[in-house]
């Protein structure tokens, strides 16, 4: 309650409250759309999990939940790296192949040199691979789609060479400490959880993260603001490659061997999770929290489909996944339009 009545406008007294102040709040519809964009995946995840828990006797059991978490956690690291890449407006199709390559190199390292080699070799190769891709994209100005598609094929090729076209299988020795990294449920979940948390911090609270978001939102502006755009681009592919190969190595620690046929199409699942999590495929906006919701939602749905439709086979799972993704992209387009992002 303020008893004084001021004249509505004071024109002469310098910069008063103008239109910028008058529109301090966005229309409700736009604010709602922004919320759905940001937390939609989480809401759907909660909803799906609640319904599944209520209707299925097996879904809410610890053995089921732990199998969802333990078996998938490492693959989610691909989505973590992909989130950064997509926020810059790029794409990294090589991560599925790098995941497999990392697995084989991890097993090879464990077999020939022990735990340190098993960890460092895949990380080094992934980082190198990512750096080359990043340099081609940032310095040579090539399209990320083409460069990383070449990376996808190249990493598969290297994998075939290392394993003599699948004839040689590298095994992680039974007593190797390396196996501990992938064992059980808690180790993978904590490892991956910590990396996601660090990723979130990097994105929201570091200058690097701000640069990535800025360059995805308006690359020209980022350049003119003097942000280190090219370096950020290289680093983002380096990060994605390292995470993919590292995830593969951890996967091999869990499986006990380097599986050559693994990882096909994982890049697409990662992209799907990122997009479902509310990150704009055109770049400039996104969150790690959203990607967490995205990967969990996909995993839960996958689990439910396996459970209810297993008699139809895995092809059916892929079809449902695809339909779901199409739905999400449609929804995102509508949300973007409501917020007048485009």
């Amino acid at each position, binding site marked *: 309650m303020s008893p004084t009545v001021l*004249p*509505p406008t004071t024109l002469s007294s310098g910069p008063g409250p*103008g*239109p*910028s102040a008058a*529109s301090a709040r966005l229309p409700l519809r736009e604010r709602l759309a922004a919320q759905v964009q940001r937390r939609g995946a989480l809401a759907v995840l909660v909803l799906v999990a609640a319904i599944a828990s209520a209707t299925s006797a097996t879904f809410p059991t610890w053995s089921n939940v732990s199998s969802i978490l333990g078996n998938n956690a490492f693959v989610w690291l691909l989505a973590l790296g992909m989130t950064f890449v997509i926020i810059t407006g790029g794409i990294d199709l090589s991560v599925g192949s790098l995941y497999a390559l990392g697995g084989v190199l991890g097993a090879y390292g464990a077999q020939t040199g022990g735990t340190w080699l098993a960890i460092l070799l895949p990380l080094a190769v992934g980082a190198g691979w990512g750096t080359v891709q990043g340099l081609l994209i940032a310095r040579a100005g090539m399209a990320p789609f083409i460069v990383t598609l070449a990376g996808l094929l190249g990493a598969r090729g290297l994998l075939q060479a290392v394993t003599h076209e699948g004839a040689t299988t590298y095994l992680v020795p039974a007593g190797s400490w390396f196996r501990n990294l992938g064992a059980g449920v808690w180790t993978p979940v904590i490892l991956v959880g910590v990396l996601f948390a660090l990723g979130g911090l990097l994105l*929201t*609270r570091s200058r690097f993260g701000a640069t990535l978001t800025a360059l995805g*939102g308006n690359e020209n502006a980022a350049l003119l603001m*003097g942000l280190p755009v090219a370096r950020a681009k290289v680093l983002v592919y380096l990060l994605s490659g390292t995470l993919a190969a590292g995830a593969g190595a951890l996967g091999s620690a869990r499986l006990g061997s380097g599986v050559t046929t693994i990882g096909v199409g994982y890049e697409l699942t990662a992209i799907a999770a990122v997009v479902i999590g509310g990150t704009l495929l055109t770049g400039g906006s996104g969150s790690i929290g959203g990607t967490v919701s995205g990967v969990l939602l996909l995993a839960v749905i996958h689990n439910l489909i396996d459970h209810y439709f297993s008699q139809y086979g895995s092809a059916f799972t892929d079809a449902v996944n695809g339909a779901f993704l199409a739905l999400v992209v449609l929804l995102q387009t509508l949300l973007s339009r409501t917020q007048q992002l485009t």
Partner: protein
Amino acid sequence: MVQQDPGPAPDSVLEAVGVDKSFAGVHALRGVDFALRPGEVHALIGENGAGKSTLIKVVTGVYRPDAGRVRLAGADREFRNPLEAQAAGISTIYQEVNLVPLMSVARNLYLGREPRRLGLVDVGRMNRQAAQELRRFGVDTDVTRPLRTLGLGAQQMVALARAVQVDAKVVIMDEPTSSLEPREVDTLFEVIWGLKAQGIAVVYVSHRLDELYAVCDRVTVMRDGAVVHTGEIAGLERLRLISLMLGREMSAVREKGATAFEADRSAGAGGRPALRATDLSLRHRLHRVSLEIRPGEVVGLGGLLGAGRSETAKAITGALATDSGTVEVDGTRLQHRSPAAAMRAGVVMLAEDRKAEGIIPNLSVRENIVLAALPRLSRAGLVDRRRQDEVVRLFMDRLRIKAAGPDQKVSDLSGGNQQKVLLARWLCLQPKVLLLDEPTRGIDVGAKAEVQALINELAEDGLGVLLISSELEELIEGSDRVVVLKDGRVVGELEGDGVTEDALLGALAQDADARDADTRDTDTQDTDAKDQDKEPTP
């Protein structure tokens, strides 16, 4: 950063000496000398293509000069990129707001130099500082909002705040007012005077002569890549300035007036209006706006920014859905309201934002022209190339579009020629009514005159034209009649000899006074009522 001692300061804080720059054979800068004194506001003007932008890009490190030097505070410098120039104290605000729309206002303000604690961005402090900083620039808003949700003017202010905030010795402003409202322009001027007081030099690029005289100390005029004049702006006659820019004789400019409209063009004959809009209303934006356009008549739409001029034009074409109101073309009421229906009836609109709403930059001149007319130029779904060529040639000649040929990419053309291409696109539909929203904005003086002359010719040929322009002289000299809008209402109409700048300002001002009086009355009553309410309280 070394603090300059005010005493033995060098004559020039920023200097370009004999700068040459060519692009693929085009000589963009020829031996340009440019000197900026500390604490001065220096206007840099010239037609499009005169080399202003290239010069700015050379001194800010976007381009490297082929020959010549850039000196900052008396020392030779070679900036390899804008970051280096910025670090050395040269900040630039570009004409199109170069910020990141999806990121928050505070983020945009501090990108690249966020306050940090323990290596992490201190978001709380950043937001507090940003809010404080922006209030000085007349922007009072929630700084965590995405930048895109701010008006263009406020965005420009954020860009300005950003540029000034770095430890700048020189601030370069490239057409900073093109998206500002008058009130915001005043704020900008205050900021500029503040910079001046701190000894910071400002390079001010603008097409608006009023602003130059209001805020600048000296002026450098460029033409065809060379400097043709440098000196004090006070005492320099406007006509002389224009003739320097155009390279024409002063007498010729004086004779023809500041715009290319002919003063004595006979107004459209009476008879049935080509277009009649009645009682167009849209909540909060338009209130019972009515107007008529007769064939051969140019009707100006006057008013300040936000008065509802563009909205009126868009409502007429149906691009903006109205709550009520009707539109008649040639006496026939339009049943379905959409741009396509209006187009079929013969009403076309040249939108204000050329880049976003008109030109398709990667297509050729030919394709851009015939785009809207494709259905007419096709037989059985196939495009008739021969007829297409005829139409394109006709309009390229008639509108004097300067292009290497019909197959040149439109993005290679100058702004003025792009505008003509758009005009050609609509004219080849043979419209009855042409709605022009700021047809000469952002194009250089020469092209402007040509577009103005074209509007004249088109009206002579019997076309009804609605002209929206924020340039008073263009509106006054170009229109046979001016309908004055304020806050979405028609508040006056000027006709014949009554179309003068004074009359237009009068129409706007009169209404404002009346409104103020009204408001004051209500306020007094409110206050009285409140006082009475309070009295019985023990």
